[in-house]
């Protein structure tokens, strides 16, 4: 009798728990129950929106901030018009929970930090809205794992696998190429941010991961013992002392003005003409935000740092990457506009 009851109970449980639901373990180690088919996903911040756009744009409910006019040609037609949905990351969220729920997402995804604040935030929002909330590790090295995890969640494993392989083969190619280059032969890179170029990312921050991966040495190195790894303000004197032979930036104003600025003129990067302006559409190539957009930036930067070793045809590579990741066929005009300055400043 008891046995029969148990069987009935098991059957009842098996019936109640629909065969459709699944459990996923996210990067923070949280077990999250998600529906079998995930058709609408809310991106909690800009990095997550790019991860989702790359994998399955039709599932995206909107952009944390709508694409700007100059970014629109580089996003596939139906998706550039998705609505603005705000950010849900951190206490500084601009998202309105009712708006999030009105879009009826099956899932909320955040891509980036998996520290305690974000874990508790995810738990809170999940409890409050009843919508499963996944946290995905956003470090650059973890990109292939993030693609595979989200591919499984979204049920687009083949595409995720193809993209993950692309990233892995790039990582492997760079690693193999860089292994033969002595540390002293690597460029000393200063990452200039802001209109005056006096804001930089310290070595080890998520904003500058790309420099080391591409084989550069970040001159803003606070040492191994430093507790802070973020963006910082520096003085021109510190830049001169750091003596960078290469400067990278995404700020157009800085790039235009630095060539004629007497304060910068004696820095080796300027005397050797090695200042590089990164493309920023539809997403930045260096950071801004730190997401999959950095993959093409990594390819470009490695070629900038070591033109002999990594002689990528950046125009062809960009066209391929934008097709594969961003679902757009670039025409020559858009491609030229995008890459205009990325080859460096023409000698005059």
């Amino acid at each position, binding site marked *: 009798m008891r046995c029969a009851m148990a069987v009935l109970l098991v059957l009842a449980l098996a019936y109640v728990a629909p065969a459709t639901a699944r459990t996923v373990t996210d990067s923070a180690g949280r077990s999250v129950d998600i529906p079998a088919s995930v058709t609408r996903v809310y991106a909690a911040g800009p990095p997550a929106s790019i991860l989702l756009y790359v994998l399955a744009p039709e599932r995206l409910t909107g952009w944390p901030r709508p694409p700007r006019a100059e970014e629109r040609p580089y996003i596939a037609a139906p998706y550039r018009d998705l609505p603005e949905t705000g950010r849900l990351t*951190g206490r500084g*969220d601009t*998202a309105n*929970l009712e708006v999030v729920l009105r879009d009826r997402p099956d899932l909320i995804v955040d891509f980036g930090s998996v520290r305690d604040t*974000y874990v508790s935030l995810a738990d809170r929002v999940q409890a409050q809205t009843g919508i499963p909330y996944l946290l995905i590790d956003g470090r650059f090295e973890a990109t292939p794992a993030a693609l595979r995890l989200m591919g499984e969640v979204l049920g687009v494993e083949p595409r995720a696998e193809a993209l993950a392989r692309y990233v892995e083969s790039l990582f492997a190619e760079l690693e193999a190429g860089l292994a033969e280059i002595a540390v002293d032969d690597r460029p000393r890179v200063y990452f200039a941010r802001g209109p005056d170029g006096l804001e930089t990312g310290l070595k080890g921050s*998520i904003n500058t991961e790309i420099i080391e991966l591409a084989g550069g040495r970040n001159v803003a190195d606070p040492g191994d013992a430093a507790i802070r790894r973020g963006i910082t303000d520096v003085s021109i004197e510190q830049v001169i002392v750091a003596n960078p032979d290469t400067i990278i930036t995404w700020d157009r104003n800085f790039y235009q003005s630095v060539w004629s600025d007497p304060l910068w003129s004696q820095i080796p990067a300027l005397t050797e003409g090695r200042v590089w302006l990164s493309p920023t559409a539809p997403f930045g190539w260096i950071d801004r935000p730190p997401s999959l957009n950095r993959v093409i930036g990594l390819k470009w930067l490695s070629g900038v740092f070591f033109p002999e070793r990594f002689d990528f045809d950046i125009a062809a590579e960009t066209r391929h990457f934008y097709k594969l990741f961003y679902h757009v066929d670039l025409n020559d005009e858009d491609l030229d506009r995008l890459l205009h300055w990325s080859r460096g400043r023409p000698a005059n």
Partner: protein
Amino acid sequence: MVPRQAGELKPGLALSLLALIVAVMAAAAALVGPYPISGEQIASAVLGRLGGQRDPSLGQVETILFSIRLPRIGAALLVGAALAAAGAVYQGLFRNPLVSPDILGVSTGAGLGAAAGIFLSLPVIAIQGLAFATGLATVGLVYAVATAVRGHEPTLVLVLAGVVLGALAGACISLLKILADPYDQLPAITFWLLGSLASIQPEDVMTAAPAVLLGLVPLVLLRWRMNLMALGDEEAAALGIDPKRLRTLFVAAATLMTASVVAISGVIGWVGLVMPHIARLVVGPNFNRLLPASMLMGAGYLLLVDTLARTMAETETPLGILTAFVGAPVFIWLLATGRRGW
């Protein structure tokens, strides 16, 4: 007693009217939001919850109503009332209409705690706890400094100590902002310092409400003595009360109320400074009526502003910005048309 002028409401009637207005506003606020919910759906969801059974067809509506909208309305009422009450207490205590609940550094102190919590990537509950604790600790420190200094003017020394330590806490916040990660921590700190009820949860309201009520008890019990405090220390002492002890008690109560709401809402300016003034214009300076009037106005005002914050655009607007934009014109108009002195 200032003679009442023609056309003015009796204070009792004014209070009842205010309470009615706030209640109507709260009901109206439950009806509006980006997620369309009809009045019938709200009624059946509320009746269903009271009756202990749920209407399965409501699903999402229940979540919106009970986990998001109603807690937020409750939080707006609670935070607004607490800030306005604290403002009324401080303004009476220091006999100065320019005093806000932050005069002794409670919000700046709480802001420092929250910034530190965000900087250290602590869980949300720890950030709130740290904000509450540093808010109280800052005022405690101000009090300790003022007691140690012992000037001729106890209130002046107290205010000066509050200004100095508040500035110090402000400098520490700036330092943390410089050090914080600009991608996820800096916007969080900035947004926190501007105040928002966007991520309010039912538990937040349940945790803050008892602390606010606890702070309210001495204010209500000793409301008559507050009027004596407004006469100044010597007069109050001559009338047989101990101004020092009473001041400590009032400051502690107002600080507790402010710190507990600031911990869940972030720093919201304006309400504590301006609402007591408007209340004074309506019901006069008698603390017995000023306290409830301030609280009702603060609650109603913050409810109005927060409802705007969550319905105006698809994304949230920080309350610190809206309170000033909505409040400044109203305040100027009241100043221009007001007939009563302070």
